[in-house]
């Protein structure tokens, strides 16, 4: 795998240009990315109040600026997955633009059951090249990272962004198959690769 790279010269984004709100020094980024994000994402984040029937208090949480009290939002998902390393390069998925903030969304899992606390986190992956055979491994890494980090009421949906991969449907079907994912987690070799990818996550 290492001897023959699929993409030996990937485009790498400048770390300072990546969306963040974790480092106070770059808090101005919050203005650029944060506002845009909040404007589009808050209605759905909002409905995800942690408690059943937390529907009524939604307007309060909207104006709540305390990040510690904030429910899990897209930026937090981004922070969880953007630090994962590419299996081929010692570069993060964020820097490679394999994952990006606009391609992350959080929606109610059961829209017709308003009281349900279930939320689906959808992460669309953009492989660096359209025939990258490592797309499944990257997708699995993202799925594992989120399943290990998020509370169990979150359902993780990791897919290849439309039009960015030659066998996207095949990869998506595998990543959505709970049984296959469960079995993959028990595969030592595969988990070795995933563990290495996740080493760079805090």
């Amino acid at each position: 795998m290492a001897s023959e790279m699929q993409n030996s010269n990937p485009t790498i984004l400048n770390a300072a240009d990546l969306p963040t709100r974790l480092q106070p020094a770059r808090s101005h980024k919050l203005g650029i990315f944060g506002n845009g994000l909040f404007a589009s994402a808050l209605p759905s984040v909002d409905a995800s109040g942690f408690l059943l029937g937390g529907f009524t208090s939604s307007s309060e949480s909207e104006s709540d600026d305390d990040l510690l009290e904030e429910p899990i939002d897209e930026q937090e998902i981004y922070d969880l997955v953007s630090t994962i390393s590419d299996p081929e390069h010692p570069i993060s998925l964020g820097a490679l633009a394999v994952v990006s903030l606009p391609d992350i969304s959080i929606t109610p899992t059961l829209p017709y059951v308003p009281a349900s606390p279930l939320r689906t986190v959808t992460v669309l992956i953009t492989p660096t090249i359209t025939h990258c055979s490592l797309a499944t491994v990257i997708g699995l890494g993202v799925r594992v990272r989120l399943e290990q980090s998020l509370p169990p009421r979150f359902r993780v949906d990791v897919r290849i962004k439309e039009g960015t991969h030659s066998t996207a449907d095949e990869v998506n079907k595998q990543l959505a198959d709970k049984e296959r994912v469960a079995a993959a987690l028990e595969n030592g070799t595969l988990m070795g690769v995933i563990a290495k990818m996740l080493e760079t996550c805090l």
Partner: protein
Amino acid sequence: MTENPTASLTLLSDLTPPSLERTWLTAPHPSLPILATCSSDKTVRVYSLTNFRLLSTISGGHKRSVRTCAWKPHVQGESVLATGSFDATVGIWRRWDSYGRAEDDTDVRGLSSETLNGNGRDTQKDEDDEEWRFAVLLDGHDSEVKSVSWSPSGMLLATCSRDKSIWIWEDLDDGDNNFETVAVMQEHEGDVKCVAWHPVEECLASASYDNTIRLWREDIDDWGQVACIRGHTGTVWYLDWEGIGNVPSITAVCEQGTSLSAEWKDQCAISGPRLVSCSDDRTIRIWKRKPKEQWAQSRVASSDIPSIIRPTGTDETWEEDVLLPQMHELSIYAVAWSKRTGLLASVGADGRIVVYEELLKTPAPTLDANTPTATPATTFQPHTEWVVIAILEGAHGIYEINHVAWARRADRSREENEEVLVTTADDGSIKTWTLRR
């Protein structure tokens, strides 16, 4: 969600203690009031349906998650369990039924403190009597085993895997735990998720990641595919057969009721039991075999192939009988067709339990007009409708439900022939439910 449920599911009891890891499937014993639950912790947990407590844990056989298990039918004095694991092997386990009989006694007398203490009663017995004996490991699959099923006679065991193959093993019953490979079928184009034997015939149904359901029979010493059913647009997760002699409920008391039931039975005698499937495409479909004679006639009529060429051909035509009301919003992982009541139950990733009932209706008068080519024998075709009678949201809280099964109720508050639903979930919990009409 336009349905109006007329029944409700009430929690009877959790099976305790639960597994600490994901549980995949729970198999009720064919005759004893016990259940076996497969867990990701590599063990199988055997629970009592009398007091809902853990009786024993089968461990040490599998190196990875136990995904599936099935009790061998018609075994005297002993229980035999087949287990399938992500470690690509199938285990066969045996245990003398002395323990189960003790459970039965308790059942009759009511709960004693002895059984509430779990294995208390058994400690007086010989060690060997208590233990699940590991009998044999069936090695052959290349990757995770997903489902195992015993044929109605108990002679054959079918196993299937992510390696896209189905293996049929014959239990030689030679007292030496020998199994012989009878057939390996590799026609599926993706993981085989489920295998299920016809309730009386040696006919196997399989469901796959390739979105198809296939049927298999032995034809002069060779096992082969006799039908490939396409219709689902996603992975087919689970299959179950209709019980023999199942008759749907009559909607209202009417004069035609008796004759309707009789007509129904005649129809069933021709086409045989139906098959139900559930899928990642969020649908549940029921499939019916096209009666052989009728099929042969239609072939003659269309004069494509004279029926004389293959008068006893093994190919079967299966058609969609009905698409059940769509009540699930996410992947449907399991469906269970009660052999006692004919009720259907389904569960899946949305955490919902749905129960359906089939109602026999008066035949529609316009039936003839719709089927101009039908032979006179089929003009009076009983017609049924499936209705949702119960929905339970979040049955295991926020967790996905992986399996559902019907079992005979065995605790002391039971009514005669009453059934319970047993659901198995991602958090390791197993719950039993009663249906109140």
